[in-house]
């Protein structure tokens, strides 16, 4: 059975399909690629992850050129937005913006602006200035450590999106205290996926999937003769086990999970997603999945919901359209989870968007 998301959704029911589609007229929403199409898939390492693009089309040489262009663009974004590379534009901003105002390249400015808005709207659950905190917890060196409360409160002085001031007329940016660092690691991969999709679309690609490894996936059109791209979400406890299956067309899906990076001290496991308010890793959430129209949005939302939890996310979804969220929380017995599905109140989407979810 399928349920249109616009209809009432009963999260307690079993074996349901949730269909998020503006129009269900037979086949109208399926962008069909030619049956004679070939499939071309390539991977590329960038931004500390592996991007994979699968495209359908007729001409292998053309497809490979387009995909190479995508990878080159992703590398350009990495050069610009990495804070591991001392010469990236972002690193320069982090070094200098406390001393004087910086003029920022338009796309980077746009992404920072989007991020700050997401911070405001989420009451700071999503925050691009959380980097120094992550460093204290040792996540950048790959070795977790437990910082002292004094250390945390000292670092928190320079953590907070309120410390970043923007002057949109001239794309100006300034920090109001020193020690502030912008880290786009929680959103840049989703943004890169969107830029990749832009390039694919502008080259007339009708069916493609772009994945940024662990974080975000965008499904452009559908594989030939199929209804959306099948995307399986892993079980929070076991990588090879499926928790849920989605079918997506012209939708992005992002995940955040404590399985990505975590460490154990004593019997306690700390995950890599920080609550910017407390300075402590988020507890009581295993993973969240968000389906939204762009990778930038879904990637930001997945963190917002992970940090905010189910209850705080309800009002956000009530006031923001076009998103579906699945929360996976620890179940009553060990190694089990309970699942909560929330969706936006309203959907304003093009007719060819499709997100089906089978649980």
């Amino acid at each position, binding site marked *: 059975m399928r349920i249109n998301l616009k209809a009432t959704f009963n999260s307690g029911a079993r074996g349901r399909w949730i269909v998020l589609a503006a129009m269900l007229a037979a086949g109208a929403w399926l962008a069909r*690629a030619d*049956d*004679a*199409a*070939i*499939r*071309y*898939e*390539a*991977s*590329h*390492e960038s931004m500390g*992850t*592996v991007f*994979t693009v*699968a495209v*359908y089309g007729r001409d*292998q040489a053309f497809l*490979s050129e387009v*995909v190479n262009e995508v990878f080159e663009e992703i590398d350009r974004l990495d050069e610009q937005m990495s804070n591991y590379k001392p010469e990236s534009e972002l690193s320069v901003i982090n070094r200098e913006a406390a001393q004087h105002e910086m003029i920022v390249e338009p796309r980077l400015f746009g992404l920072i602006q989007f991020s700050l808005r997401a911070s405001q709207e989420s009451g700071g659950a999503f925050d691009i200035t959380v980097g120094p905190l992550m460093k204290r917890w040792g996540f950048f060196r790959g070795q977790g450590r437990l910082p002292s409360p004094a250390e945390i409160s000292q670092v928190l002085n320079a953590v907070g999106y309120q410390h970043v001031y923007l002057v949109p007329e001239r794309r100006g940016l300034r920090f109001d205290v020193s020690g502030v660092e912008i880290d786009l690691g929680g959103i840049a991969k989703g943004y890169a996926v969107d830029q990749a999709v832009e390039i694919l679309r502008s080259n007339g690609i009708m069916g493609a*999937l772009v*994945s940024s*490894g*662990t974080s975000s*996936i965008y499904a452009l059109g559908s*594989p*030939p*003769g*199929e209804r959306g*791209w*099948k*995307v*399986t*979400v*892993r079980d929070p406890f076991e*990588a*090879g086990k499926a928790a849920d299956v*989605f079918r997506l067309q012209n939708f992005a*899906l*992002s*995940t955040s*999970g404590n*399985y*990505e990076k975590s460490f154990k001290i004593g019997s306690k496991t700390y995950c890599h997603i920080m609550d910017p308010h407390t300075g402590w890793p988020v507890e009581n959430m295993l*993973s969240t*999945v968000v389906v939204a129209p762009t990778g930038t949005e879904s990637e930001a939302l997945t963190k917002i919901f992970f940090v905010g939890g189910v209850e705080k996310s309800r009002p956000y979804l009530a006031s923001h359209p076009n998103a579906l969220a699945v929360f996976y929380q620890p179940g009553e017995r060990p190694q089990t989870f309970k699942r909560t599905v929330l969706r936006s109140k309203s959907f304003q989407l093009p007719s060819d968007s499709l997100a089906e979810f089978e649980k």
Partner: protein
Amino acid sequence: MQKEQDVTRREFLKTAAAVAAATTLPSAGAPAILSAQSLSNPVRYGVIGTGTEGCTLLRFLTTIPEGRCIATCDIYPPNLKKGVETIGTNPETYEDYRKMLERKDLDAVLIATPLNLHAQMVLDALSAGKQVFVEKTMYFKEEEGDQIRKASAEHPKQVLQVGLQRRSSLLYQVGMEMIRKGALGKIMFVRAQWHRNNNWRRPVPDPKYERLINWRMYKEYSGGLLAELASHQVDVANWAIGSEPVSVVATGGIDYWKDGRETCDNVQAIYEYPGGQKLLWSSILYNAHLEFDEQIMGDRGTLIITLGKGMYYREAVAKVSSSNSKENWWAGATVTSLAPQEGIPIFPERGANGEIGFVDREVRYAKRWLASMGIYSYEEPHDPWWTEMYNFMLSVRDGKPVIAPLEIGVADARGVIYGNRAVETGQKVFWPKAQPLKET
């Protein structure tokens, strides 16, 4: 997605193991323990030139009972003595190799003299009815190639083997099998270097021996770095690409060790092959950081290989398939890193009968993993030098195929000779006619 990558990687390891298992390799031979007992009908051989390399060969020959050293020859008494001591079989000694060749009871000779002497000694040995092993580089002057070919054709029953011991290395054979099976894709580039940081001289007790001992420094006897070092690596490139080159450009000079030597202390050469493949070769005597290895590059992978060590690196390549493949993507699967960055060690191993049991396979994976982390290092079952000598004895005694036969030696020598011509003339040198190499 990650699952898929993992599978591919695992599949690859399986393939590499299977490749190692499936190669048709010459028998690795009897264990060294047998050496004490002598076989009833050993090959009776003599060695001409018992200097550095002659004694290396003799050392390995002490553990090969299929042959017995009955004669050695050298014009430098200390080396003659050293040779006799090394083999320990009380061989008869000669100063004039021609006298040695007159011996009717001598089946085979091994030639390890300075390069300028190789061709004449090969010709004399063949016409004296002897089976011949000659050190690389096979010959010194262009015209000697045809002379040796002619002599060899006139004595078809006599073995002629060249001392390119990489051909005898199980590790290299596994590497070449990987190439043949497509693990590297289309081979388009080989980069090789032999870098040292010393003057490449040998100590001379009395100045009158300078030219005899340091023959490598003088053009009258030596082809310099190309003959002594590139010869091994040009042969590897020829082997990997399956052809000899069609042209070479090169430069070099005596720019650092200006001590009266005549051969270059640095050479850089680019060889081009019939399919546009290139070998970029360099040798310097004033920095040893890179040491020596061969980096064989195809559009699907890279093999970095030298004696005792081989690493395989996969390229991140696109997959092309028909459109009816089923899509199933995984979200949130953790991707650590792409395979190509991690090199995979290749192993000079194969299972008995080509079949590997479960435990063997697991042990092999574990070893690979440990080796990739530098914790474990592996060894060939035999030193390639040993295998080379053993193979020579079996070729002589039982007619086993010769590992590095005439044409491989000729192709190699041409690479050296034309490379040197390119250095000397500053001109691009073209091969008279490129010849496809026969697989061995």
